């Protein structure tokens, strides 16, 4: 991995206003998710007298149809959404990288087998599989992460495979081969370090789509089960009260939007930053 590349990517991030805003938003959300337990209100405590109250000083984000404090629910919901997003991303990125490197490096029948398998998985509508699986699997955090992660690695694998094949043609890899470096030596010393930027960019985009998928699943009622909140399930709940309490939809919707957007912006900026600069100082 080239040092200048890292420096360029870092500079690109700091220089763009969008990048700073995106990092700030994610930072706040992640802090909120980590320190959600500091909130004085219990996210699952019912209060029949405080149903559907508008935002006030007592309830910053108001209360929902069971009188639960919406701010606390948003914090805890963010915790679940971000956790699912990150775990699914790690799973998808790991599988994608391994499949991509193996496929691109060894080629031949192994490459054929893996790529055909990938195409089969890719040809099945993702949402259909998610819904079918969540019927048979008990919906909990682990199974949701598994489902999302296992359905998201294919694009990553394809990008990594193509990149690996390009790196294989470089003369330093040829030299290493001609000098008797073994497969793992070539993969870990020469190929993997050059892949890191691609992996980082892919991973940022993967977090965004994992959060989207989790929200969609929860919105349809197949995600994390009540009474635990996620942004997606809160949005689902808000449907019935859109006329009386529009803020119920506004907050989780806005948070999902901001998180996904921030991760995507981050991915875009890093991608530009990692690209070699020509004549630009």
């Amino acid at each position, binding site marked *: *991995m*080239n*040092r*200048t590349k890292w420096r360029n990517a870092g500079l690109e991030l700091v220089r763009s206003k969008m990048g700073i805003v995106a990092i700030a938003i994610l930072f706040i959300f992640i802090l909120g998710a980590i320190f959600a337990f500091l909130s004085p209100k219990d996210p699952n405590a019912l209060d029949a007298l405080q149903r559907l109250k508008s935002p006030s000083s007592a309830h910053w984000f108001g209360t929902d149809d069971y009188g639960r404090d919406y701010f606390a629910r948003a914090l805890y919901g963010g915790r679940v959404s971000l956790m699912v997003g990150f775990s699914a991303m790690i799973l998808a990125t790991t599988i994608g990288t391994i499949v991509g490197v193996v496929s691109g490096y060894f080629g031949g029948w192994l490459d054929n087998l893996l790529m055909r398998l990938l195409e089969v998985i890719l040809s099945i509508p993702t949402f259909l599989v998610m819904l079918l699986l969540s019927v048979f699997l008990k919906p909990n955090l682990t199974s949701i992460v598994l489902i999302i992660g296992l359905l998201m690695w294919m694009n990553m694998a394809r990008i990594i495979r193509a990149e690996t094949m390009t790196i294989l043609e*470089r*003369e*330093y890899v*040829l*030299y*290493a*081969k*001609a*000098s*008797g*470096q*073994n497969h793992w*030596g070539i993969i870990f*010393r*020469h190929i993997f*370090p*050059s892949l890191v930027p691609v992996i980082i960019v892919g991973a940022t985009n993967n977090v965004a789509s994992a959060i989207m998928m989790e929200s969609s699943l929860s919105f349809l009622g197949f995600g994390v089960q009540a009474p635990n909140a996620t942004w997606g399930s809160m949005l689902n709940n808000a449907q019935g009260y859109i006329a009386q309490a529009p803020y119920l939809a506004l907050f989780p919707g806005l948070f999902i939007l901001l998180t996904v957007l921030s991760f995507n912006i981050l991915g875009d900026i890093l991608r530009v930053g990692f690209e070699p600069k020509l004549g630009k100082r």
Partner: protein
Amino acid sequence: MSEDKKVLVDVQHLKKHFVKSRDAWGRTSEVLKAVDGVSFQINKGETFGLVGESGSGKSTVGRCILRLYDYTDGTVKFDGQDLAKLGEKQLKPFRRRIQSIFQDPYSSLNPGMSVLDLIGEPMNIHGMYKDVEERKEVIASLLEKVGLKREHLYRYPHEFSGGQRQRISIARALSVRPDFVVCDEPISALDVSVQAQVVNMLEDLQGEFGLTYLFIAHDLSMVRHISDRIGVMYRGRLVEVAGSDELYDNPLHPYTKALLSAIPVPDPRAVVERVIYTPDAAAEEAAVLREVSPGHWVALP
């Protein structure tokens, strides 16, 4: 090809065919004959130049000797040992003895590794100079041998010019004390002024380390200077092999004549007559390499 010298590399009827396309059943339907029956020998301590235009198969020959490719047919013997018969494990000592320098100084060094790591890589592979301090010393003295400085040990490739990078490649190739170095167009990407420096350095190192070179190039001017004997390749075949002065003074094959007439003359008033070679494919196929005078072989169409 004098008999009194010891043959180090013996290439016989080497063929490398690439599969261009396959039919619906996965059978090979079209092949590209990159190297099609090439034979030559390189004696210990000499430099054998291999020239030809782009796509003539000269780099493929080099890569077959390096065992980067599994060749289709023929044998490559190194020090009497048939390399194709060896598995990767038995091949390992030969991978130390046969080293390589590649063409593109910008792609032949891993941009993420320092000079110390780059030159140390082949040492690592072959378990040489395991002591950290000793290794640093050996690498620093190698750097000085190729005209770089000790301070460059911790620098990264992007801090060097093309010529300096090529020097690092040379130091890397020499780090494991090889017998034979395949130089795959090591000077083609460099400035003319730097080319001469690198070629002179390669010659000095040859004497000092007792090296044997296979020197692949596409222009003839530098090759004459460094090579003892030169083979001319055209479309996957050797069309002429001769001592370098003999080849330049007395070229027999029309393609060699065409190639020689293409050497630029640095004089704007010079009138150079270009020879254009129009090959007859059938005659080309049928031609066999024949010795016309001692050490001068030619395959006349």
